[in-house]
């Protein structure tokens, strides 16, 4: 399974924030294991066709809470998790709370199930996101 990100240049959210949030989510979901080497700033910027400074800022903002580390010889890697049952700051960065690791795994499984069922029903990405947003807004009311 490959971990990938996408950046929507039309979005109101800055590109560096999209990159930061997606990488943090992947770490929280376990799709990026601790020790996984990330592409260099220049390589990821070239792949996305955006400025290297944008990627560099996203990496800096991921380094601050300790989600990733930059090592001289091995480049940028996903930081090891602290020796506790709680997820590291990844989910906390996303949610602002301390979330147990088992709950994160259940959420990840539920998301994959939702995507699989949605694909079977013929929904594309935009439709799946629209359904999710509608449900979330209904629950907020």
């Amino acid at each position, binding site marked *: *399974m*490959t*971990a*990938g*990100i*996408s*950046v*929507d*240049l*039309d979005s109101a959210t800055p590109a560096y924030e999209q990159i930061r*949030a*997606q*990488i*943090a*989510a*992947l770490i929280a*979901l376990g*799709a*990026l294991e601790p020790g*996984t*080497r*990330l*592409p260099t700033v220049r*390589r*990821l910027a*070239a*792949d*996305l*066709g*955006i400025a290297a400074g944008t990627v560099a800022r996203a990496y800096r903002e991921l380094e601050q809470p300790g989600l990733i580390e930059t090592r001289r010889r091995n*480049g940028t890697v996903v930081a090891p998790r602290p020796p506790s049952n709680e997820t590291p700051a990844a989910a906390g960065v996303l949610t602002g709370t301390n979330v147990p690791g088992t709950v994160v795994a259940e959420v990840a499984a539920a998301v994959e199930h939702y*995507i699989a069922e949605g*694909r079977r029903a013929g929904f594309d*990405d935009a439709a799946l996101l629209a359904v999710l947003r509608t449900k979330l807004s209904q629950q907020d009311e």
Partner: protein
Amino acid sequence: MPLQPSLPPLLLLGPLLAAVVVYVVLRWVVWAPRTGSSPASVSDHALWVGVIGWLASSLQGAMNVGIIPSGPSPVGPLTSAGTVLPALAWPVLGCLTVHALGQVSYPGPRRMRRQAVLSVRRVRDFLPRRLALTTAAVFLTAAAAIARTAALPGFAAVAPTRVSDGEYTSFNGGGDGRIPGPDVALWLGGALLVLAGGTWLVLWLIASRRRLESLDTADNTVLRTIAMNRLLRTVATVAAGLAAVAGNFAARPDPAQGMASWGNPEALACGVVLLVMWGWRPPRLAAAGLGARNRPEPGIAAGRPHPAARLLSSLGALLGLAAAVPLLTGAFLFQALLAAPSYGFAGLVALMAALALLVVAAGELLLQHNYGRPAAPRRWPGRRVSPALLTTAVLALLVFLIVLLVTALGQAGLAEGPGWVPSGLFTAATCAAAVPVLLLARHRQGVAGAPPGLDSALRAVTVHRVVRTLAAALTAQAGVLLLTQGNAWASVLGRAAFGETDPAATTWWPSIAAGAGLGVAAVVIAVIPVRSPARPAPAPPPGTEVSG
């Protein structure tokens, strides 16, 4: 053996121009102006890189490195730095440069939604292992063959003895000489090292270049493997060629000792490597080949294509054969063709074009015989030939006419025989031979029961093939004139115009270089692919991945 302290500035202009032309061609192929970059255009681009790279890798001009000819030869001896360096540099650097240009000619991302995979790409992630090991073995064998030459001594050439009985004259004895082995080992070993280092650099470039947004992750991976496959196959043949050059040097007997026969087993091994690499096919992109991940192209009916379309598609292989058989025959009769330069090579080009036109005409006749009905409607396509091919054909005609005119002027100035006349006549005959084929395509009976648009599309394919053949023949004939009538050009432009300083030179290298370039261009034109009768599909969206 010292290098020349300075190079004529125009010596570098040729390779630079060639690189620009190759880049533009590759960019045009992959970008496909009408539809944009798509899996089909990316697949075509990979094929073109392989074909052009293979064409650029020929070591034919370097086979006699280190050999001192015993008599006058059409090309100068390859025994000094000034002659050996270009002979080896062109194929080694040329094929590497083409593959590198193939990687940098991909378009950048244009969509507003960009995607990337969070993994570190390494060469070994995409390297086809068996092919890489085979290539490494070829390199090691070539290194051993080259190292062997370092221990071989040089000896002088001996001119053959002229024996005459009054009626007949013959030549006995004598033979070519060679320079000391360490010099040749230095040149060939250096070329092999440059080839190995350059191969590694291009492999790194393939692994590290950005992904293409018209392909999903799996096809992006396969594309890198395809590029590595084509590169490794090409450099393996070049390495085998260097070994053959070393074998040609080592096998020469000392004419002073009276031995006459000799063989070059390395050349046989080179031929085997060539055939093996020829057959070592790369994987295919699933998206370009209507694989499981792909949607079917719009406009193509579900199920099998019409038999008439299959018949016309199958002619592609026959066309290649029609051109290849005379070419291979010409390779065996090379010396005979050299003895009659004004009409030998021109006749060979005309024969290849005529056979190709014959195959196209036979295809039309078969279509009419098998599937034609008098009552079926005859649809003449609105656009018979793409603007790019039409432009190419017009340019080829212009280039040929200019080359013919300058050659005629030059030969008139030198008071030489009109060596340009056979080429002109053969070319005119080729153009005349194309007319009945075009008329056949125009007036053929319509295909009964064909889906809408198929009959006109089949006629368009035939016209495309005829125009392509003519464009390639014109370009090749212009190249032949430049290769064989270089002195005429030297007399018109001035022998010293491009830095030629040897007053005793019997050939003029700028015309040879230009002729070779036109020859390569002719081959490239001859393999311009025919588009399928259905329009290409827009690029499918990349497949889903785990993403944040």
